[in-house]
């Protein structure tokens, strides 16, 4: 799925340079479930942004299904995100003025589906995450757990091959956390690749392997072989 080749990302602010990401070659295969762990500021979000085609690295190549991501135009990368990738955020990032149904419709609209298709598919996805009764609720009228489930439905709208999640359970209560993690398990078992940033040891346990980031450097290890120091 993903191949990173000597990728570095250096932020330069007011003459100071921060090496947020520095990794030699490593791969995330199809159907993988990788937990990205590491201390705060170690470059986890930076890695996710680079994988999502939203942040050009200073050097190196990111290959998605063999094609170099950052050699493509901005519009083409947007199209790849739309058709191939789904994002889950710690803060859910629902559009506040749209209802649950409309939020799930947005990626479907971006993919060019007809209005009828949008409504049908969005309602079906919301039923799948157990929110069939909440279609017309605005995010502010939903609990945090429900909001994250709407966000999950939105992520699944265009049937992505990869799900990139940044601390998806960071803001959730234990019950909602379990619901979301169960979903991610299910999505992985459907064959989707999952890259999940997390500080939560219990969440990381569910992944097939961990990517441990320290000061921007990646070390990969199989489940259970590394301690999570977060």
């Amino acid at each position: 799925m993903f191949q990173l080749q000597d990728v570095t990302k250096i932020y330069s602010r007011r003459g100071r340079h921060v090496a947020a990401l520095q990794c030699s070659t490593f791969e995330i295969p199809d159907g993988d479930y990788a937990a990205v762990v590491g201390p705060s500021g170690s470059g986890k979000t930076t890695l996710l942004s680079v994988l999502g085609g939203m942040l050009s690295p200073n050097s190196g190549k990111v290959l998605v299904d063999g094609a170099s991501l950052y050699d493509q135009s901005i519009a083409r990368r947007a199209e790849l995100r739309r058709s191939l990738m789904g994002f889950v955020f710690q803060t859910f990032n629902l559009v506040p003025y749209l209802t649950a149904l409309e939020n799930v419709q947005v990626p479907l609209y971006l993919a060019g589906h007809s209005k009828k298709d949008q409504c049908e598919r969005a309602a079906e996805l919301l039923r799948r995450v157990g929110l069939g009764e909440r279609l017309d609720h605005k995010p502010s009228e939903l609990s945090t757990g429900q909001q994250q489930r709407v966000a999950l439905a939105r992520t699944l709208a265009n049937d992505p091959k990869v799900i990139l999640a940044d601390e998806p359970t960071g803001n959730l209560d234990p019950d909602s956390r379990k619901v979301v993690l169960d979903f991610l398990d299910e999505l992985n078992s459907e064959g989707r690749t999952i890259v999940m940033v997390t500080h939560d040891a219990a969440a990381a346990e569910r992944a097939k392997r961990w990517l441990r980031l320290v000061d921007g450097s990646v070390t990969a290890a199989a489940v259970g072989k590394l301690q999570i120091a977060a």
Partner: protein
Amino acid sequence: MNLRSIVWKELRERPTAMLTGLLAIFLGVAALVAIRHVTVFSEQEVAQQLSTLGANILILPKNATLQDYYSADLSEATLPESHASTILMASLPGVEKLSPKYCVPIDFAGKQTILTGILPQEEFEAKSAWQSVSMFSKTKHVGCAKAESCGPTDNSPESLASRRSIEKLDAHELVLGADVATKSNLKSGSSTVLFGEQFRIVAVLPSTGTVDDGRIFGHLHTIQRLAKTGEVVSAIEVLGCCEDAAGQLVPQLSALLPDAKVVTISQVVQTQVGVNRLMAKSSIFVLGVLVLVGGTSVASSTSSNVRERRREIGTLMALGATPGLVARLFLTKAAWLGLVGGVAGVGVGVLIAVVLGPQWAGVSISPLPYLSIGAVAAALVVALAAAFWPALRAARLDPCTCFQDA
């Protein structure tokens, strides 16, 4: 879900954020449209007066004030009626007709009305024959192409409205202005009583939109007798055969009648021409204000809207929105603002012009479609131009902002 519904739903959520921009555009367009409408119609009115009355000359008392050609004879001062004979005997080339008038305000059918005495043309003919003076048109204005067509064509009393003279009117006959007729419920053929004497109405004039609609016309000598004023007139209208003739006649008439004021229609409309010029200038100023104030407030509210929605924009980009689509999101919103502000502004501006135009400029106004469409287009262009840079900034936002905390 589509671009338009996203824009609408965001706008509906917090309509007040864009209110100043909307208001600025609305007010600018309303003022612009109102002023332009009044200016256009006022200019048309002036042009029309110049073309229909361009050949006419007014002879007025020296201290008469001039605001409007049609009401020029309403001042209290008078001239001796003998001035008409003086002009007649001078047989100046280019003079087609003379129409001496005397005006007295009266109460008629409970309304303030202007009783206007007018001397019919046939009495001039009798007079000129008696005094063996050649009738006006015998000495044509040289080089006047229109002179050929000068002369009586329509002798009906109704032609008084446009030709400003009357061929024949007996001592106890009246002609009513359109408004007087409707208000007093009198028709051609009915009779009425003025100063205790019985009069027959011979004609009702078509509506002209001028002060003439509120006049009652009678025979000059009858009115003079009833008002006990002696042989005086308020004004003498000289109907020249063409504009060139009028220009040449003014100095000759001034020399002939040193105690009178001799003016042409172009002098009468001069003040209005000045006012129109001022309005034309102020409409450019208002357009500037619309562009500046409307533009700035749309630009600033779009800017802050972009700032507030950074994370939402980042999220949309993460979901696959292209920078172009993000820009269109803000441009569409600005376009709505311009369109709504523009259309509302045009509506109110036209309404103001139609209602207040007659008071401001004494012209009746009807909506001008091209001007209205132009104003809406201008509002649209201003709003789009103002939102262009903020929209571009939104399009260039780093999609990574979607990972940032609120």
